[in-house]
């Protein structure tokens, strides 16, 4: 059964718009102009219990707005949404006890007090008995490798330690559904890895459903089997992470090693030559022509060794988003 069920969910904002300059500022003061921004265009998806799903898109794609709607923070402009059997924007207490939202660029911890104080507040608000609260803090702290940091003022913690404490505070009530908005933002490689490991463990231990946004592909590849790709408010891919290669990059890279020097012109007919050295070359070949092309290569070139690889998924997604527009799969591919 789907824990998160979204049908034609959309959100539009009215934002004031003004041009720079003194005169425009005056005009804007007297005659305010607004424009409609469709932050999220109707999108639909569902997520089963225990899934970890990556939610990817460039800045301004609508990821955070979608997460806020799922967490019940903002009202949708249209569509239907159900999370853990509740309508999020009704913000029923039973719903709020089942979910959490962690925002990498915001903090819930009290800045001037030790993190333990914030945990105590959360313990009281979520009606966690004192002994149980202590046990949960100990358990999560062990999973996150936190110890003395919990009794230091939050402002004295490093960014990585702070984020771990944020996660701890957000998970004390053992939510079933986690909305994570860039939880590894700004963390160093070790801290990122620790957070990923923790999330994997939490998911395994409590069968938690996780919807995760991140600009670090390493987070996605380490945690998510399934991804949702969103661009300009529209969902354009929902499927396996591995499927992105099939859909958006229907080509393979063929690495060739030769027994003798081979001129670039001899390799060019087989595909797009990415690199050509004296005794090696890298050629991009369309997937449907791969078998026949490799046969021809082996027959016509002095091949000593041949390796076929998928293009790195990070580069495919990065290319999709940096292009600024996402086209149909066919035009999003290489030759």
């Amino acid at each position, binding site marked *: 059964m789907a824990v998160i069920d979204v049908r034609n969910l959309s959100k539009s904002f009215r934002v004031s718009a003004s041009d720079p300059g003194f005169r425009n500022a005056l005009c804007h003061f007297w005659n305010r102009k607004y424009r409609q921004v469709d932050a999220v265009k109707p999108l639909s998806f569902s997520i089963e219990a225990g899934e970890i799903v990556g939610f990817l898109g460039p800045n301004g794609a609508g990821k955070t707005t979608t997460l806020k709607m799922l*967490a019940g*923070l903002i009202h949708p402009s249209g569509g239907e949404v159900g999370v853990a059997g509740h309508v999020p924007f009704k913000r029923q207490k039973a719903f*709020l006890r089942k979910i*959490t939202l962690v925002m990498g660029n*915001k903090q819930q911890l009290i800045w001037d*007090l030790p993190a333990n104080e914030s945990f105590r507040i959360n313990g009281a*608000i979520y009606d966690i008995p004192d002994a149980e609260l202590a046990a949960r803090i100990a358990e999560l702290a062990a999973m996150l490798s936190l110890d003395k940091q919990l009794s230091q003022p939050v402002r004295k913690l490093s960014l990585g330690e702070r984020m771990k404490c944020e996660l701890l505070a957000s998970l004390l009530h053992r939510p079933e559904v986690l909305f994570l908005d860039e939880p590894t933002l700004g963390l160093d490689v070790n801290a990122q890895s620790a957070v990923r490991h923790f999330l994997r463990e939490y998911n395994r231990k409590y069968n938690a459903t996780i919807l995760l946004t991140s600009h670090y592909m390493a987070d996605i590849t380490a945690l998510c089997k399934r991804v949702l790709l969103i661009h300009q408010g529209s969902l354009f891919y929902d499927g396996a992470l591995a499927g992105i290669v099939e859909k958006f990059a229907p080509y393979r890279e063929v690495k060739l090693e030769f027994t003798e020097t081979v001129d670039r012109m001899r390799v060019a007919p087989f595909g797009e030559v990415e690199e050509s050295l004296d005794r090696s070359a890298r050629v991009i070949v369309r997937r449907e022509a791969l078998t026949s092309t490799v046969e021809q290569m082996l027959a016509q070139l002095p091949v000593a060794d041949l390796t076929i690889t998928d293009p790195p998924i990070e580069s495919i997604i990065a290319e999709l988003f940096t292009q600024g527009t996402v086209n149909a799969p066919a035009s999003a591919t290489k030759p």
Partner: protein
Amino acid sequence: MLKKLRILTVTQHALMLAYRAEIYLWVLAHVMPFLMMGVWVTASRSGAGGAGGGGGMAFALTPVDYARYFVCVFIVRQFSTVWMIHEFEWHIVEGRLSYFLLRPMNPLWNYVTAHLGEQLARFPFFIMVLAFFFILYPQARWMPSASAILLGFFTIYVAFALRFALQYCFAMLTFWFERASAIEQLSFLPYVFLSGLLAPLADFPEPARRIAELTPFPYVLSFPAQILMGQITASSPQLYQGFAVIAAWFAGLCLVGQFLWRRGLRRYSGQGA
């Protein structure tokens, strides 16, 4: 619920103690009643109704009573000052309200306990200021009866609730205007003039006093101060009239506040978050 409020208040108290300088300034910023006391005590000494018994204008209280009145106003202000609109405005604009909305508890309690924690943190400094005043002006020293203290502090917290409800309604306008505190400033003038901060209501012309008594402002300052002074007691009809007006205003403000909260949440965009 009581456990939640206790832990929230204690934590807010700890947070307030992190800003010691701010607490000193807060207490000092509330010395306005002492300034007004100086003005009224001096004036009444030369007035017809004052201790001076001169031939000037009539005053409702003796100089010592003026001193006591403004001391009571100082006490009431220490426990009934409300600043939630500034915090709420910041939380909306920065998107920090999101974290309160994610909790299974009305965010209102966060603001209430922040005020209680701050009052607790300010308490020792408030006592010091009070003691310092009575050392300087021993004539004004008096010991209210136990019933006056009990009823007075109950009324102070009723006044706090009323003032909180009033500011809460203004704060909800942040969902529409973002700088709702500027709108709330509109209530500052009537508050200053009608609450009894500048002059006891007894010195108001009768029609002005009657009008003032229909607004919520006298009940957030003058009313509890008069109870602390012992001017209004449990047997005074004014006490019940006062509570009736407070109840009417409080109920109305709660309804308006709840309506604005529900409508406002639909507009919340979690800005900055």
